[in-house]
C-alpha cells in the first residue's frame, strides 16, 4: 500500500500544530505517521453505519457548579512561573505580523 501521507501533508499539519519541525523530522514523520495510518486502514474499512460515536466512556450531563464567587489562583504566584511578564500581565511578542 502506498503511503497515505506526503511531505507537503506533514508540512501543512506541522503548521496547524504550531511545530517548527526540522527537515529530518518532516522526513521521518512522513514515513512513520504513514505507517500508523496504514495500520488504521482495517478500521477505516469497517462498516459502522448507524453506530453512534463515543466521545466519553461514562456519560455525565450538565455538570454545573453553583454560580458563586470563590477564591482564584494568586496572580503573583502564577506570574512567577511565566516566561515573561510586565505590569501584572503575561508579556508576548508581537501578535500581528508586519505587512509585506
Amino acid at each position: 500500500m502506498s503511503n497515505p501521507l506526503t511531505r507537503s501533508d506533514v508540512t501543512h499539519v506541522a503548521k496547524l500544530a504550531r511545530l517548527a519541525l526540522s527537515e529530518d523530522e518532516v522526513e521521518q514523520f512522513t514515513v512513520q505517521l504513514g505507517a500508523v495510518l496504514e495500520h488504521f486502514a482495517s478500521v477505516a474499512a469497517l462498516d459502522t453505519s448507524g453506530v453512534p460515536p463515543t466521545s466519553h466512556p461514562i456519560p455525565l450531563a450538565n455538570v454545573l457548579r453553583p454560580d458563586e464567587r470563590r477564591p482564584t489562583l494568586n496572580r503573583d504566584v502564577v506570574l512567577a512561573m511565566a516566561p515573561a511578564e510586565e505590569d501584572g500581565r503575561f508579556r508576548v511578542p508581537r501578535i500581528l505580523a508586519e505587512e509585506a
Partner: protein
Amino acid sequence: MSSSDGLVGRTAVELAELVRRGDVSAVEVTDAHLARIEALDADVHSFLCVGGDVARAAAADVDAARARREDLGPLAGVPVAVKDMFCTTDLPTTAGSRILEGWRPPYDSTAVARLRAAGAVVIGKTNLDEFAMGSSTENSGYFPTANPWDLGRVPGGSSGGSAAAVAARFAPLALGTDTGGSIRQPAALCGVVGMRPTYGRVSRYGIVAYASSLDQAGPFATTVTDTALLLETIWGHDPMDSTSIPAAPEPALARLEDGVEGLRVGVVRELTEVEGIQPEVRAAVDSARNLYEKAGASVEVVSVPSVEYGLSAYYIIAPAEASSNLARYDGVRYGLRAEARGSGGVPRKDSEVAAMNAATREAGFGTEVKRRIMLGTYALSAGYYDAYYGQAQRVRTLIIRDFARAYERFDVLLAPTSPTTAFELGAKTSDPLAMYLSDVCTIPTNLTGACAISVPAGLDAAGLPIGVQVLAPALGEAVLLRAARALEVGFAFAGVPKLGEEAAP
C-alpha cells in the same frame, strides 16, 4: 525499633500500623526509604526529583500530630512515590518534559491533596514517558528508567518510574496514570500490582492532561491490600473535576477476603491469543484460570471480537485529544519559551507570537510527543475528521458494546497484561508501531472506561516478572480487587529484585 533496618520492604499496612503504635516515627520510616533511594536509585533512575527535606518535613508533621494525640490518617507516615504527572506545590512538576522543566504548580492535584490529608509522605516524583506518551519510559525528556529486575531492560511505561520505585522498594506505594495501560503494563513488567480504576473514579484535577477521555489515575503497590488502601484514599467525587463520578464508591478493602466462590470468570480469547504473545505469558493466564477454578469460580473462554480494532482506534483518539490538550504549551503562561530564529540561526526578538509558539514547541517537546501531536492534528484536520477521528469513536462504541455483552455472562474477565515480559532498552525506540503494540491488551479498558488490574504471576525463564490482568465493568472496583486478591493468594508471588550489593554474584 529504633534502627531504620527492617523498615524498607514492608507493606503500607505494616508501616502505618508501626507509626500509629509509635514503634517507629514517621521520620525514621521516611529516612529509611530516602537512604535506600540514595544508595540504589543511581542504578534504576526511577525518580526525577527526590523529596528529601520536603518529605522529612511532612513526616515530622505526622510525628507532631501523633505527639499531640491527634487521630492519624490511614496512611500516616507511609512514603508514596508520585508520578510526575501530578501537580505538587512543594516539588517541581515536569510531566517528564523539558517544556515544563522546573515548573512549580500553584496548586496540588486532588489525588496528592488526599494523600497528604491521609498522612502519607510524598517521597519524590517519578520518571515517565514525556506527557505519559510511551510504553517504556524511554521517551522521558530527562533519562530512561531501568527495570530493577534487569537494568538492561525497560520498566514499561508510561508510569515506569513509579513501577520501578515500588519494585525496588523505594516506597511501598506509588501513584500513576493509565491512559492506554500506563499503570498496568509497567506493573506487569516490574512484578508489582498496578490498577486502573473506572474513568472518573479518581479525580483528574491537577493531573497534567494527555487524553482526557482516557486518562485515569491509580495505585501501585506490592500487595492487593495495599492497592485497595491507596485507592480508597484517593478515590471519590471531586467537584473540581466535572468528569468525576458523583456516586459514592462501593467499599473494596472490606470485601477483599470474601473469595471467588461462584464468581464467573471469562478468559478473553482475542487477548490471550494475541499475535506475538510470549508462551510463558500465555501459560500464566492458564495458571490463573486453574487457580480460579480451584478457588470455586467458574471459568469459560469468551470472545470479544472488536478488541482487535482497539489499538488502531486508540492511536487515533489519544493523539487527537493530546493534540488539543498540548496546545496550551505555547511559551506564554508557563514553561519554556524559545525565540524564533531567522536566517543563519539568529534569534528574531521582533518576531511575531506564532513563530515564538512554534519555536518553543519544537525546542521543548520530544520526538514521540511531536509525533502524536502531528498524528492527532492530522486526524482532526478538515477532510479527515470523519474518516479517522469519527470512525475511531464509532469503533469505540462497538468495543463498549462487546464488553457489555461479555459482562452479561461474566463478573470479571481474565487476560494477559502485556504480551511479553520486559524488553531491552532501545529494542523498540526506532519503530513506534512495534512500541504501540505492547499496549494491545490494556487499551480496551481505557476505551470502555472500565477498571482493570495487573497482578504478578511469577517469573519467566529469564527471571523477568509476568503480569496477569483482571478486568471488571465500570464501577466494579470491589469485585475486581476481590478477584485480584484471590489470584495473589494463588500465585503467592514473593519475588523481590536484587539491587546493588544484593545483586553481587
